[in-house]
């Protein structure tokens, strides 16, 4: 019986010809893409869960200010970590601190020098491997990764890069700046993709302590309450309420600081390790939104694929009605037929799956590119197979059961006359086509809106002129470099500032002005610049004057418009302003200039002259001579700092980087919308073919009676176009609503205009028309004598 069933299923599949090709091909594409998507979703949802006690590990976040000034940071001052690690906070089993490393970035192994990205460098407390527990140690001791104060921990990739071997324990690495030599204490397996910690060269926290030079009244790093640059993690005992731990830490701070200004104190909160990746410190689910969107798209694609399958299968059922009737007459029960049809579906799906696996293989490089994930998807992974088979079963359930049920229930007498399909099934098919095209139209619409928003962001007024500017990290040699470059003919302007604009400025709440409400914790960005920065970057002063060269303006401030608005200062020019212990006055107001992602508003910002803080040189080349300017800069660099590699970055690129997330969303959407539309068209193509086939006789008769070809094409296409029209009407408001929500994520957004609806609708109709008319024209051109005989 089973072999018989399988044999028949196979014959049916091969007899289906192009119908089977559409069915199998469409499903394969959908399965491949949605499995990849769901895999990505899974990856995002499992971030940091590879640590064995992940559910007991929390990061301590700090909260500053209240009301509109409220801010959450994902870090604490060092003493909070000290308290957490002391063993005196009830509920905390263990604690550790991680920090960024900005003290140096050039390392030497052998006689090769490497300039590392500061994102790859970090500090960690000596116990960090033990506290997290999930980082795999290849060589070295998990309990003591830094056996001496001059130890460093590397990932395998870094060990290979420096020493050509993963077993690098004991080999030495020199920090170029200080000539201090570090020996490798442990080598970690490369950190998994789904780790939110991904530094690759880790120095002991004790090194940071040694490099600490004091901050105001605080002489030791571990006493410094003013520097919030330590990501502090605690592992609580089972059953402990993390909020209690946070409360204790806040109390410890309040006692230690004993300040008269409670507004300056922070409150500590906890955030579970497993939520770090998808949630902001303030609980906002930014990351989860994209995960939801991708999950939704995967489901949409799967349902479009299922709809195709149901449509094509039930359309074909008309053809099979007679077979089903005969089977019933010779003794088949509905159950038998169900089984037969399900086996057929299963066979189709299994074939699709095989094809999908092939497609996935082809798409993996593209997937990596698109998602920025390096590892992850391998067909050797049993979990991948669980996924594939799961997707298959879900599809079978969604798409296989209904047609089988439907066909198995055919009335034998009617089916013997070739009339299995009743009006209501054709009705269902209409509903499905409408659904499918509504989804496709919605995706087209969304793609257009996203595209518009992206180009809007790209064309957005930045408030300054970023063309032909590159920046160099010059640290304490900025002024010397600037002087050397300033007179070159290929260089138009040189200026300097604390950091490169997009890499983030420091922020401070240590400000005072006359109208300030006492105790208000107001955060603002601060950046030291050279006196000509505002002017030569092409920024616009809306009030007051620029800095003057020399010492005269060392207590003068230029603030941006947002700062004036948020602080509530009227007539700011000449107003007293105090930043840290610099008591001075506001001399100018600069038009807001953009330096952060489009989702955020331009924050309040203050500029001042503090030349010793200016570690970044800005060079604007004259239009045609950018290459020459770079070459000159490199030559001068080589003369002055031969021990460091020459590195530069164009501001244009840096700003593109700011929009990378949005760019990726746009790319993904275009891709998925394309697939969805393609699959929908496959389905429509198949349905149109069936309709044409079913009406072959009618068309023949009409032609014999004198109908023109266009009238027949119209006759056959009209029905489908009506359905697509209905789809557009349904999809537009829903898509509008969804896109409006998406746009709300941006501080700067377009409004959706009517022509976007029109264009999306037109595209949907155009695509449908193309698909359907191919079949209609073919049918209309058929020789009427032949089509009559075929009956």
């Amino acid at each position, binding site marked *: 019986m089973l072999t018989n069933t399988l044999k028949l299923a196979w014959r049916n599949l091969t007899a289906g010809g192009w119908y089977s090709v559409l069915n199998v091909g469409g499903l394969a594409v959908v399965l491949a893409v949605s499995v990849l998507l769901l895999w990505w979703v899974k990856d995002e949802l499992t971030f940091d869960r590879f640590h064995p006690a992940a559910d007991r590990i929390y990061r301590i976040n700090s909260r500053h200010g209240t009301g509109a000034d409220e801010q959450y940071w994902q870090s604490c001052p060092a003493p909070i970590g000290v308290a957490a690690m002391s063993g005196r906070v009830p509920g905390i089993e263990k604690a550790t601190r991680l920090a960024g490393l900005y003290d140096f970035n050039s390392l030497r192994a052998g006689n090769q020098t490497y300039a590392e990205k500061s994102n790859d460098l970090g500090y960690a407390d000596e116990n960090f491997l033990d506290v997290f527990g999930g980082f795999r140690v290849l060589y070295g001791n998990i309990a003591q990764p830094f056996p001496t104060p001059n130890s460093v921990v590397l990932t395998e990739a870094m060990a290979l890069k420096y020493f050509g071997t993963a077993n690098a324990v004991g080999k030495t690495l020199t920090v170029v700046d200080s000539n201090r030599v570090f020996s490798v204490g442990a080598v970690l397996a490369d950190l998994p993709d789904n780790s939110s910690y991904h530094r690759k060269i880790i120095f002991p926290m004790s090194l940071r302590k040694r490099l600490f030079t004091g901050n105001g009244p605080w002489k030791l790093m571990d006493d410094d309450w003013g520097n919030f640059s330590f990501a502090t993690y605690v592992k609580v005992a089972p059953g402990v309420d993390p909020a209690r731990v946070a409360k204790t830490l806040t109390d410890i701070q309040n006692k230690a600081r004993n300040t008269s200004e409670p507004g300056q104190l922070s409150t500590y909160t906890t955030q579970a390790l497993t939520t770090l990746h998808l949630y902001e410190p303030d609980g906002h689910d930014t990351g989860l939104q994209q995960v939801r969107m991708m999950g939704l798209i995967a489901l949409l694609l799967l349902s479009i694929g299922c709809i195709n399958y149901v449509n094509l299968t039930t359309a074909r059922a008309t053809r099979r009605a007679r077979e089903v*009737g*005969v*089977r019933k007459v*010779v*003794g*088949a*029960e509905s159950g*038998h037929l169900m089984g037969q049809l399900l086996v057929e579906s299963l066979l189709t799906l299994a074939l699709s799956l095989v094809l999908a696996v092939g497609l996935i293989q082809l798409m993996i490089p593209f997937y990596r590119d698109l998602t920025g994930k390096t590892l992850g998807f391998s067909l050797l992974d049993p979990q991948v197979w669980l996924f594939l088979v799961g997707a298959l079963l879900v599809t079978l359930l969604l798409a296989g059961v209904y047609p089988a049920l439907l066909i198995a229930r055919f009335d034998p007498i009617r089916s*013997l006359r070739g009339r299995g399909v009743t009006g209501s099934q054709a009705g269902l098919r209409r509903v499905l086509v409408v659904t499918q095209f509504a989804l496709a139209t919605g995706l087209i619409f969304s793609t257009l809106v996203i595209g518009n928003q992206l180009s809007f962001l790209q064309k957005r007024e930045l408030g300054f002129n970023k063309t032909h500017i590159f920046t160099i990290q010059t640290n304490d040699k900025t002024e010397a470099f600037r002087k050397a470059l300033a007179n070159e003919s290929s260089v138009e302007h040189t200026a300097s500032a604390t950091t490169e604009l997009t890499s983030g400025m420091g922020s401070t709440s240590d400000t005072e002005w006359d109208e300030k409400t006492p105790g208000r914790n107001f955060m603002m960005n601060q950046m030291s610049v050279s006196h000509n920065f505002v002017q030569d970057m092409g920024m616009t002063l809306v009030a007051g004057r620029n800095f003057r060269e020399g010492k005269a303006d060392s207590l003068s401030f230029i603030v941006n418009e947002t700062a004036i608005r948020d602080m509530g200062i009227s007539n700011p020019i000449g107003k007293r302003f105090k930043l840290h212990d610099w008591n001075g006055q506001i001399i100018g107001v600069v038009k807001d200039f953009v330096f952060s992602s489009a989702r955020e508003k331009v924050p309040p910002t203050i500029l001042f002259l503090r030349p010793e803080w200016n570690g970044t040189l800005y060079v604007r080349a004259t239009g045609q001579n950018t290459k020459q300017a770079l070459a000159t800069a490199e030559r001068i660099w080589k003369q002055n700092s031969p021990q460091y590699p020459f590195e530069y970055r164009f501001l244009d690129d840096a700003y593109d980087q700011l929009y990378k997330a949005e760019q990726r969303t746009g790319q993904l959407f275009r891709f998925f919308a394309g697939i969805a539309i393609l699959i929908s068209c496959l389905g429509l193509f198949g349905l149109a073919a069936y309709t044409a086939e079913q009406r072959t006789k009618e068309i023949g008769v009409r032609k014999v009676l004198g109908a023109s070809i266009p009238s027949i094409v119209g006759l056959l296409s009209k029905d489908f176009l009506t359905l697509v029209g209905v789809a557009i009407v349904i999809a537009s408001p829903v898509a509008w609503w969804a896109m409006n929500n998406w746009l709300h994520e941006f501080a700067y957004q377009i409004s959706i205009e009517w022509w976007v609806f029109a264009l999306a609708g037109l595209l949907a109709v155009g695509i449908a028309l193309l698909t359907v008319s191919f079949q209609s024209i073919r049918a209309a051109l058929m020789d009427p004598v032949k089509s009559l005989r075929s009956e």
Partner: protein
Amino acid sequence: MIQTVNLQKLFATEEVETTALNGINMDVKDGEFVAIMGPSGCGKSTLLNIIGLLDNPSDGQYNFYGTEVSKMTERERAQLRKGSIGFVFQSFNLIDELTVYENVELPLLYLKTPAEERKTRVEEALNRMNIMHRRNHFPQQLSGGQQQRTAIARAVVAKPKLILADEPTGNLDSKNGEEVMKLLGELNDEGTTIIMVTHSPYDAGFAHRTVNLFDGKVVTENIRV
């Protein structure tokens, strides 16, 4: 034993209501060969479908070998039908995707006959209908006569007590038609009850008696002498 009492069948569509059968009383004894005749549209096929348990009457009783079946559900009818009735149609109704052998084997598969026995019985039926040499052909590769012989082989393979034939010679030339009628005659001689719808008085001559229908009613019955 087949007995219908005042059998009614109404077809209600949106506009019209057709009375296809209007009070049919009919008895068919075991081993009988009955022909049903009448003008087109008088209800012959409808009656045969109900007798064959493919459809339910709208009203009246139908006793099928001692069981009252007129109110049965489709599922119950299917159970009862299985293995006890063989059908032969004017348009053969073979499954195009199956070979001759597989078509004939089908009823036995649904009866879950063991493989060994299945093989013997299919071959027996094929030999008997003189179609064995075409066993691996698909229906489209056969002549009309061969297709109908395959259909009869399929109808008899499960050894049903009743064979229903709806214009079995309608699509065949006279030579092939004659052959089919002889086969049905032989089956009847061996004890199978046969009810056959036909337009051909010649074919009706093979039956013991002829029931004439008109407008859903039995008008006359001729008994062959």
